[in-house]
């Protein structure tokens, strides 16, 4: 059973989730990421890829620059 506060949000005292609820499968793959991708259309999947890669390139460029 999950403890909730007055607003209905789970409290910090909630018991830990069971292994079955965790994101990772026994092969180490994050199943929740796959579920999210499968829920998208192929075009949305490509958009997610582009957005992620653009973010990585932005991060790479930011890290490569000296602080002002």
């Amino acid at each position, binding site marked *: 059973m999950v403890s909730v506060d007055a607003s209905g949000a789970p409290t910090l005292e909630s018991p830990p989730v069971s292994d079955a609820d965790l994101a990772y*499968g026994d*092969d*180490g*793959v*994050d*199943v929740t*990421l*796959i*579920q*999210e*991708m*499968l829920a*998208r259309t*192929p*075009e949305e*999947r*490509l*958009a*997610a*890829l*582009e957005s*992620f*890669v*653009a973010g*990585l*390139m932005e991060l790479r460029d930011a890290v490569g620059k000296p602080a002002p």
Partner: protein
Amino acid sequence: MPSASPPPRPAEALRVLLDHEVDFLVVGMVAAVLQGVPAATFDVDIVHRRTPENVERLMRFLASVDATYRDRAGRRLPPDARSLLGTGHNPFRTSLGDLDALGALHGGRGYTELEPRSVVMKLGGVDLRVLSLEALIEEKERLGREKDLAVLPLLRRTLALGRGK
């Protein structure tokens, strides 16, 4: 040193390929992403039909995106139709990101052999042929390189979860 790669725009690259009526199928990790695999990749891999007419259409596409071969020495080499008619790999840098045009996959399997192992998806309302996840897994198992083996658990799990839907 090769020139810096522009931000990849795989969706636009595939749309422009379709606009040019190139016969091709998507392979590699973009094929995996299209089928729900949560992975990142920086280039688009395609296998094109190696007929003179199709290579001509592919050459027109490549000209439209300012393609040059990615070259370790940094030379700006234009696409070569003779090379595109062969079974080798043609790694291009384009204005829409890096794109590799492969004459064939491992074992010499080209467009004709791979087409029955592909699935058709819609991109902007147009049919897009994509190497099936099953065939992609088999290909990576065959290649057996570390970089291929590393993604197999992700591909297999996505295939299993997708089948359960």
